[in-house]
């Protein structure tokens, strides 16, 4: 197990990158704590797979260093880094039995038979595939195959890190949460450093202690699920986490008041003078309908009843405002205003959160 340090890391797939936009991964400094569970979350093309491949050693970065426990491994191959990786499509050796699949990495390292047998049965118990150890790996279902690929990674006691590259893509929906929760409990049992790449917020937030949100080659926030929900560091995080995402409204800010198109909104704290494009962000959960005309006027376009809550699609002038209210909310005709929970308001300047 190891602590992984990324120092001034950047990568471009073009030979002579000229501008920032040529970089698939923009300059990044980060330390991955030993034994923690991380998720790399972002839409497709945000650079998360590039970052993963740099950590696993499949890709050499254009600049910067990768350190495993302070040892520079930037130019070392995958094997020397001693990591395990689980891919999108399950990789199993079809002609071998499940047992031989699990034993394969150990046999290649020429360990003793007794040790291998012991280790294989331990891992099989852990991932709950003991009953199929003597079956051929070929015709098993995708989720079992993915477990076998995982098992082959975990069978080596000395792995520095376990990397997952969208491992649940080909898994049947109703099996997904089973595997997801199993991965999490495995992490607790084993304490390996684990890095999990996905575009699915539920997978990321469920699995990880800390989630690294990426957008357009840039890490926009690293935080716990609570932090991402309550204090998105960037408007992208606000949009991407949660459904519907955070409401973003252009505003101006003076002291402890924000102004949206001439309507005053009281803030929780005083802000110093801020430059740039100022926006106010608030999650749909923290807005409530009101009939009090001192609040922000809105027009209700549609009410969606999704069972456990209602989503009210409204707008203030040209700006959409989504409101989540409880299942039993009655919406009366005079509710033409919305009130914000001021403790949950965030102010953004040029898309980045303004610290209070």
């Amino acid at each position, binding site marked *: 197990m190891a602590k992984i340090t990324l120092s001034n890391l950047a990568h471009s797939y073009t030979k002579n990158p000229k501008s920032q936009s040529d970089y698939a991964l923009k300059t990044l400094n980060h330390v991955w704590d030993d034994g923690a569970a991380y998720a790399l979350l972002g839409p497709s093309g945000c650079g998360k797979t590039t970052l993963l491949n740099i950590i696993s050693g499949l890709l050499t970065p254009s600049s910067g260093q990768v350190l495993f426990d302070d040892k520079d491994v930037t130019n070392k191959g995958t094997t020397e880094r001693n990591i395990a990786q689980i*891919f999108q499509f399950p*990789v199993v050796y079809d*002609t*071998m039995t499940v047992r031989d699949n699990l034993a394969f*990495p150990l046999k290649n390292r020429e360990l003793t038979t007794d040790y291998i047998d012991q280790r294989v049965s331990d891992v099989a118990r852990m991932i709950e595939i003991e009953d199929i150890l003597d079956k051929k790996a070929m015709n098993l279902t995708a989720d079992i195959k993915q477990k076998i690929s995982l098992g082959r990674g975990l069978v080596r006691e000395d792995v520095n890190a376990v990397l997952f590259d969208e491992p649940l893509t080909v898994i049947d929906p109703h099996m997904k949460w089973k595997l997801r929760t199993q991965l999490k409990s495995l992490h607790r049992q084993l304490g390996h450093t684990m890095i999990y790449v996905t575009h699915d917020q539920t997978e990321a937030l469920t699995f990880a202690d800390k989630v690294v949100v990426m957008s357009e080659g840039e890490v926009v926030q690293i935080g716990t699920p609570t932090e991402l929900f309550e204090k998105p560091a960037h408007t992208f995080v606000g949009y991407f986490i949660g459904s519907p995402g955070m409401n973003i409204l252009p505003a101006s800010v003076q002291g402890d008041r924000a102004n949206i198109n001439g309507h005053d909104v009281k803030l929780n704290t005083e802000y110093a003078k801020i430059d740039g494009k100022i926006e106010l962000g608030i999650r749909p959960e923290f807005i409530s309908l009101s009939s009090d005309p001192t609040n922000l006027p809105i027009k209700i376009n549609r009410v969606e009843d999704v069972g456990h809550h209602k989503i009210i699609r409204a707008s203030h002038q040209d700006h959409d405002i989504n409101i989540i209210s409880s299942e039993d909310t009655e919406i009366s005709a005079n509710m033409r205003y919305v009130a914000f929970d001021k403790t949950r308001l965030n102010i953004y300047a040029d898309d980045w959160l303004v610290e209070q």
Partner: protein
Amino acid sequence: MKKTQNQKAWFMVLPVLLLVAFSAIIPLMTVVNYSVQDTFGNNEFFWVGLEWFEEILHSERMHDALRRQIIFTLIIMTIEIPLGIFVALNMPKKSGLWTSLCLVLVALPLLIPWNVVGTIWQIFGRVDIGLLGYTLDYIGINYNYTQDATAAWFTIIIMDVWHWTSLVVLLSYAGLKSIPDDYYQAAKIDQASRWNVFRYIELPKMKGVLLIAILLRFMDSFMIYTEPFVVTGGGPGNATTLLSIDLVKMAIGQFDLGPAAAFSLIYFLVILLISWVFYTVMINSDKGNG
């Protein structure tokens, strides 16, 4: 009522049925017809029953040709299949100009008409003007495919390998290309040796196309005629008289139509039988892995 809707479909199949009837069934029935009759010309035929079949099955000549045929097929397959896989493994994998060039070069022998292949090797092996024959003769190896049986065998085997290994290469290459990169990366992480990568990833993934390659090479080599005929004409003596050459000699050379017809039916059944065995093994090996 339900059935009326499907009647039209039969009319659609009719042209194909007619085509098959004319191209396969009628000629085949003619052969069957010949194989049970004798003729002294003048369009007079006598019923002889299974006499020709008995004669062919007991004839030394047929046994010799069959033995030569099996040896030939076994030799070329033990060379072409591994060689083809080996070449495919060493082909460049990334698409690009270099890869396209390699593919064209590999495919080239397949594009040459069969009798031209024969002619090329006939000239190539000549001691006086052929590069191969001349070179071998020059370095002191006694090589003359028209006189020496070993040299003749050597020539037709080399020729077949040259002509048909490409097919195995192309099929194996297609199989290899379909293996996702993830497998190689996983194998790297597992520290698998080159041999293990071949044994546990590449070979299993190539199995399907390889079985097709084996089947095709078996059928083609078992029926081979043109190329060895052009090069050696079945000689020296009967040294390279393979089954189809023998058949043609019998039918056209000696005009023994009855025995030749019986011969060709036996020939046909042998190929059908072996192909069927191949096919069943193929299907079962797929199931057996389940």
